[in-house]
C-alpha cells in the first residue's frame, strides 16, 4: 500500500518541492521517517499518530515507512505533519479519491487533529504557482498569505478531519481570495509621525535628505536627546513600498515566521532596532538551518543600531558587504544562501564615553584620547558607507515646551517621493536607483556644480580641514539636496548645507 503526497519546504528564501511517500507493509508495527529529517520531523510521528487516532480515524498497526524526497536535502520543521498524516490515510484507503495529487499540502498538527500555522507559506505558494500546481491545502491561519499569489486555489483547513472530508469529496471548501489591488490602493498609515517630535529641525531635515537619497546616517548626541524617537519615524517619510517590494519583504518575514497574524502582506517599511549584544548570526542571518538576520528583516526599511560603537566589532564588519551589494550571502559547506538586505542604516552614538561632550548643560569628563578611542571603534570602511553625520543636541525642558509642532510626515514624504522620481529618471538603465549608490565615476558624471559651488567646496575642504573622504560624500549629499530643490546643477547653497552633515570629519572633536 503506497501513497504519494506533494509538499514543499524552504531553503533560504527559495522553496523546493518535497514528495512525501508513504509505504505501509505488514510486519512488526513500526513508524519510520527517512530522507534527512530533523528532530521536529522525527517527533512528527507522535503527533501524526495521536491526531489520527483522536480524529476517530484508523491508525494502521503495521510497518509504516515515510520517505521525504529528494532524500539528500536536510529538512526541518513541523510542516510535514499534515502531508504525512494524509499519506497514511491515503495508503490505508481512508481517502478514497485521487483528488490529493492535484494539491500541495502543508500544516503542523496538534495532538487533537487541529492544524497550526507554519512558516514560509508565501515562498512555497509562489513556487507552487510556477510549477503549475492547481491548489494548496494549508492551515486556515496561513490562507491569506498564500492567497497573495494569484491563480492558485487556496483551501484553508482547520482540522485533519476537514482535510479528509475535502479529499473524499464529502465537503466543499471555498478558495480564499485576496484582492491585492484594493489593499494596495489604500493609504498606508503609521502610528508614528514626525510632527510629534518637537524641535530638532536640523535632524529632521537631515533625515529628509537621507530618505530622499537613500543615504545612511550616523546620529551623534547625548543620552536622552531623542535619537531613537527620530530614527523610528524615518520609515514614515520613505516612499510607500511597491507591490513587488512588498512581496519580497513579506517573503522574508514569512520564512522568519514573523508575519503579523492579521495582515498577510507587509506593506509598511520595516524598522528594526536590535540590541547591541546581538550575535553576528543574529544580525546577518545564519544558524544551523539558516534564518534571515536583522539586516534582512530590515530589507527595504530601516536598520537602527543604537549605541553603534558598542556593537561587537565583527558584527559591524558583517554590515559592510550588505551595505555595498544590498544582499547578504551565508555560506554553508553544502550550499550558500542569499538573502536580500537593502536597508537604510541609522547608527546612533554618544559623542564620547560619558555621553556629554559638547552638551550645554553638563560637563564632559572624557579625555580627548578616550573620545578618539571611542570613536575609533567604528572602522573606517564602515564610516565610508555613511554619508550623513548629524549631531542631536539635548534640549532643555523649556526649549521643548516652547518648540512648535513640526511638519507632518505626509508633507515631508511628498518631497521625498518627488526627489526619488528625479533620481529614478536620472539613473534609468543603470544598476542604481538613488544617489547614495553612486560610484565615483557616476559622481563625476551626475554631480555638476556651479562655479561658486565648486569654489566653496574647495575652500571648505581646506579651511574646515575636512578629510579627503568627505569630498565624495558632500557631493553625493548635495546632489540629493539639489534634487529636493528640483535643480539640475548643484548650487552653492546645496553644497553649504551638505557640509553641515559631515560633523565627524571636522576637527571639532579635540
Amino acid at each position, binding site marked *: 500500500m503506497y501513497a504519494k503526497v506533494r509538499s514543499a519546504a524552504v531553503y533560504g528564501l527559495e522553496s523546493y518541492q518535497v514528495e512525501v511517500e508513504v509505504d505501509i507493509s505488514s510486519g512488526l508495527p513500526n513508524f519510520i521517517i527517512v530522507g534527512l529529517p530533523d528532530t521536529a520531523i522525527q517527533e512528527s510521528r507522535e503527533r501524526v499518530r495521536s491526531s489520527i487516532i483522536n480524529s476517530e480515524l484508523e491508525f494502521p498497526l503495521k510497518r509504516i515507512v515515510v520517505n521525504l524526497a529528494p532524500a539528500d536535502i536536510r529538512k526541518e520543521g513541523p510542516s510535514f505533519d499534515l502531508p504525512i498524516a494524509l499519506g497514511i490515510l491515503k495508503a490505508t484507503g481512508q481517502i478514497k479519491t485521487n483528488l490529493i495529487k492535484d494539491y500541495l499540502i502543508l500544516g503542523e498538527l496538534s495532538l487533537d487533529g487541529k492544524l497550526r500555522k507554519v512558516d514560509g507559506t508565501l515562498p512555497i505558494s509562489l513556487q507552487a504557482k510556477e510549477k503549475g500546481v492547481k491548489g494548496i491545502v494549508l492551515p486556515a491561519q496561513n490562507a491569506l498569505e498564500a492567497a497573495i499569489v494569484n491563480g492558485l486555489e487556496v483551501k484553508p483547513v482547520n482540522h485533519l478531519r476537514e482535510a479528509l472530508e475535502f479529499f473524499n469529496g464529502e465537503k466543499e471548501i471555498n478558495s480564499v481570495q485576496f484582492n491585492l489591488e484594493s489593499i494596495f490602493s489604500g493609504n498606508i498609515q503609521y502610528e508614528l509621525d514626525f510632527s510629534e517630535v518637537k*524641535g*530638532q*529641525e*536640523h535632524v*529632521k*531635515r537631515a533625515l529628509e535628505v537621507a530618505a530622499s537619497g537613500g543615504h545612511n546616517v550616523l546620529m551623534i*548626541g*547625548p543620552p536622552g536627546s531623542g535619537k531613537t524617537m527620530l530614527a523610528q519615524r524615518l520609515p514614515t517619510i520613505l516612499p510607500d513600498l511597491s507591490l513587488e517590494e512588498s512581496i519580497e519583504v513579506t517573503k522574508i518575514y514569512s520564512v522568519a515566521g514573523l508575519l503579523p497574524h492579521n495582515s498577510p502582506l507587509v506593506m509598511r517599511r520595516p524598522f528594526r532596532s536590535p540590541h547591541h549584544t546581538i550575535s553576528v548570526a543574529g544580525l546577518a542571518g545564519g544558524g544551523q538551518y539558516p534564518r534571515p538576520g536583522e539586516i534582512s528583516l530590515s530589507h527595504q526599511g530601516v536598520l537602527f543600531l543604537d549605541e553603534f560603537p558598542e556593537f561587537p566589532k565583527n558584527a559591524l564588519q558583517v554590515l559592510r558587504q550588505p551595505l555595498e551589494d544590498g544582499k547578504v550571502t551565508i555560506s554553508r559547506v553544502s550550499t550558500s544562501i542569499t538573502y536580500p538586505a537593502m536597508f537604510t542604516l541609522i547608527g546612533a552614538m554618544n*559623542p564620547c564615553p560619558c555621553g556629554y*561632550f*559638547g*552638551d*550645554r548643560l553638563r*560637563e564632559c569628563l572624557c*579625555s*580627548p*584620547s578616550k573620545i*578618539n578611542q571611542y570613536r575609533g571603534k567604528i572602522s573606517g570602511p564602515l564610516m565610508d558607507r555613511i554619508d550623513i553625520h548629524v*549631531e542631536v*543636541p539635548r*534640549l532643555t525642558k523649556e*526649549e521643548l515646551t*516652547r*518648540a*512648535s509642532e513640526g511638519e507632518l510626515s505626509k508633507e515631508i514624504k511628498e518631497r521625498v517621493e518627488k526627489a526619488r522620481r528625479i533620481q529614478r529618471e536620472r539613473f534609468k538603465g543603470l544598476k542604481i536607483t538613488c544617489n547614495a549608490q553612486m560610484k565615483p565615476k557616476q559622481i563625476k558624471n551626475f554631480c555638476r556644480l556651479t562655479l561658486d559651488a565648486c569654489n*566653496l567646496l574647495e*575652500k*571648505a575642504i581646506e*579651511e*574646515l580641514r575636512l578629510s579627503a573622504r568627505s569630498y565624495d560624500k558632500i557631493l553625493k549629499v548635495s546632489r540629493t*539636496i539639489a534634487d*529636493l530643490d528640483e535643480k539640475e546643477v548643484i548650487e*552653492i*547653497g*546645496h553644497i*553649504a*548645507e551638505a*557640509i*553641515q552633515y559631515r*560633523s565627524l570629519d*571636522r576637527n*571639532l*572633536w*579635540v
Partner: protein
Amino acid sequence: MSDEKYWLGCKLIPEIDKKIWFLLDIFKEPQIIWKAGQKDLAKTNLFDDNSIEKIIRRRKEIDLSFELKKLKEEKIGILTLSDPQYPKLLKEIPYPPPLLFYQGDLIKKYEYGVAIVGSRRATLHGKVIAEEIATELSSVGVTIVSGLARGIDTSAHQGALKEKGKTIGVLGCGIDIIYPRENKKLYREIAEKGSLVTEFLAGIPPFQQNFPRRNRIISGLSLGVLVIEAGEKSGALITASFALDQNREVMAIPGSIKNKLSAGPNNLIKQGACLVKDASDVLENLGLKSLVSFLKEKKLRDKEPIQLQPFEQKILDFLGEETKNIDEILRSFSEDPSFVLSQLTMLELKGYIRQAPGKNYIRTNYNEQ
C-alpha cells in the same frame, strides 16, 4: 662653545644637576665642576661620601663627545647659560635653566614674547579668545609662548601658527615625548616654524612635578603672562605667580562670575593684574606702543570687504556674544532649516562664526573694530 659638553655633563648626572646653582657659585664654570676631584667636591659640604663616589663613577662612564654627537644626530639643539644666544629675558630670572634643549631655530634669535596660558578644560569661548589674541599678536611680530597643553595652550599656539608662526612651546617632559598625544601635529608644526624648548633630558616622562618648573620658563621667556580661563587651582596661576616673582607683567581676561573657569583670572584682577580684552590692550600694557598703532593699521589694511548677505547679518546679530545651539537658531528664524544651515556654513567659511561640538555656534571677533 667648547664648554657645551660640560654643561651637558652636569645635566646628565642627577646628583650634580640638583645642586648646580650652589656648585656654580663655588666653582664658577661647569668645566671646573666636571673636573673637580674628590677632595674639592667633599669641601663643598654638599655631598655625602656615597654621592661623591657615584658622581666620580658616572663621570668616568659618560663620554661627553659621544653624548653631544647623539644629540646632533637626533636633531636636538642645546643652549647653555654661557651661550650668547641664550634668551636674555630668561637669563634675568632667578635660577634660569642652565641648559635648554630645543628643536626649531626661533629660540636662538628670540627677543621677546607674551605667554598665553589657561585651563586644559577651556570652554570654546576661551579657546576662541586665546586663538584670536595669539593671531593678532603674532601678526605684528610678537612671539607667543605657551605650554602645549590641552585647551588654551593649544589654541594659543594654533592662533600664532595661523599668522607668522612665531611661537615657542615649553615642555614639561623630554623633547622626544609628545604629551598630550593628540598634539602630535602641533608639535611638528611648532618645531618647524617656531621652537620647542625644554630643560628636561630626552626620555623624561611628563611627571606632575615637572610642570611648575616648566611654568617658570614660560613666564621667564615672556614680557608678560596673559591668563585666559583658569580654575581656582589651575597651573596657569602658578605661571602667573612666577611672573610676579620674575618681575613680569600679569594680565587676565575677565569672565562671568558664574563661570568656574573665570575664577582664576577674576581673582588675579582683584589682586591687581591688568584687565585686558584684546591684543591691543596686551601690547599697551607691555609698553609696546608702536605695535599698537601698527596693529590698528594692519587690521584696517587687511580687512577685506567681505559682503554679508542680509540674512547672514541677522544670524550674526542673533548670536551676539553667547554660544548658541543650532536648535535655538533654527527656532528663532522662520526660514527653512536647509536655508539656515547653508547660511551657517557660509558664515563659518567667511570667518565670522565658529562651530563647536554639539552643533553650537559662536561669533568670532573678526572684523570688529
